[in-house]
């Protein structure tokens, strides 16, 4: 199925988000891949940003899943992490299943997706790892799935590139603690995370303006999510075969992530290749974006129904 066919089949419910659609020089996937970004499923309480105190958010996502289930023979789903909001449930998925049996049943049993782990559900990957249990979560995934073909896209949650969310170092522990505290504050004001996020954006903007006056770099930026440079470097490293987990050099050009809750699709040339970063957005606080890859084409779509 092509992206155009996917949109047509949706009968107007799926459309390209902004103008976020691009084409690589060579094939990236063998078939249609649907990438579902952050969901942060919790308990229908004030801290549940997927529900966001509006049952229409759940209904919209359910209709999206119904569409995917109806077309499952023509597509494969990759959930890009942070499906669960475990920072506020002490690592425990139990009550999330109680709150969302239908969504989780459709995801687990009908779609059978590839699950990539995120920083908010990393506990189900890390906590049991010494027992050899990761609940089918992967750190990262590559496309195409065909082992005989060179890898063309890297898919992971995106926290790995993020100073305050990389759970592999001390800065990530600080970020997690702050987020947990904000989570408890949501019981006092459900929108406290949105308010603080806006305040943080204002602070970043201030730094950007400051940098413009003093930096020698053209169009400088202060960004807590340094994703693009990180992923270009990572893909370049894989392409030269300089990583420990890959024997043959790859032909990576596309990094697919989530994590920031802000959809974007950017391109930058380096050497002989043009590299792309596709951030698939989110399904929290009313977000309803997802990524699609089919053949050479890839796009961020939104679901409106």
């Amino acid at each position, binding site marked *: 199925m092509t992206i155009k066919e996917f949109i047509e089949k949706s009968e107007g419910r799926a459309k390209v988000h902004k103008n976020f659609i691009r084409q690589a020089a060579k094939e990236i996937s063998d078939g249609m891949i649907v990438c579902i970004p952050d969901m942060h499923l919790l308990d229908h309480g004030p801290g549940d940003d997927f529900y966001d105190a509006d049952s229409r958010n759940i209904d919209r996502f359910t209709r999206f899943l119904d569409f995917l289930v109806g077309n499952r023979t023509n597509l494969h789903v990759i959930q890009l992490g942070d499906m669960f909001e475990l920072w506020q449930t*002490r690592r425990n998925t139990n009550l999330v*299943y*109680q709150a969302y049996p*239908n969504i*989780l049943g*459709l995801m687990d049993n009908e779609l059978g997706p590839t699950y990539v782990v995120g920083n908010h559900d990393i506990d189900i990957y890390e906590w049991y790892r010494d027992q050899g249990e990761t609940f089918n979560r992967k750190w990262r995934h590559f496309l195409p799935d065909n082992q005989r073909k060179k890898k063309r896209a890297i898919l992971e949650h995106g926290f790995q590139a993020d100073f305050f969310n990389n759970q592999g170092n001390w800065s990530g522990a600080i970020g997690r603690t702050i987020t947990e*505290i904000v989570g*408890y*504050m949501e019981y006092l*004001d459900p929108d406290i995370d949105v308010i603080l996020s806006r305040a943080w954006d204002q602070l970043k903007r201030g730094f950007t303006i400051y940098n413009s006056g003093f930096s020698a770099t053209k169009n400088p930026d202060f960004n807590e999510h340094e994703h693009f440079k990180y992923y270009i470097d990572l893909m370049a490293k894989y392409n030269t075969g300089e990583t420990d987990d890959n024997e043959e050099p790859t032909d990576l050009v596309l990094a697919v992530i989530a994590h920031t809750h802000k959809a974007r699709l950017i391109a930058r040339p380096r050497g002989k290749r043009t590299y792309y970063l596709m951030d698939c957005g989110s399904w929290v606080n009313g977000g309803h974006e997802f990524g699609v890859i089919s053949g050479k084409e890839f796009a961020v779509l939104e679901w409106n129904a």
Partner: protein
Amino acid sequence: MRPRVIVFSMSLILAFSLFSCALTTETRTLDDIKAELNCVEYTHGMQWKAIQEKFGNPDVAAMPSAGRKLSQNARIYRGKTVIFHTELRRVEAEQRVRYEEVIIKLEICDAK
């Protein structure tokens, strides 16, 4: 001071307090919890004697309600732990596939 700043500061203090309290409760697996319990699994049609031998005489032997048979009785234990085991069940509703949680096993337990 602006009211929003006061409310925000109070929220922050309260959130820190709640956060500290939350840290004192530890999440444990079912195996961890059951290690401290003696449990009996309920199955339909099991002998009453098995329960009585495990937990002793009931705390309350309720009188039969009017309209019921004298041979159908209810016995009540107070202070027991009940464990409901659940899983997802596939159902069809309005030609759509849906999932709901159902109980697949029930255990009644006493502290060791």
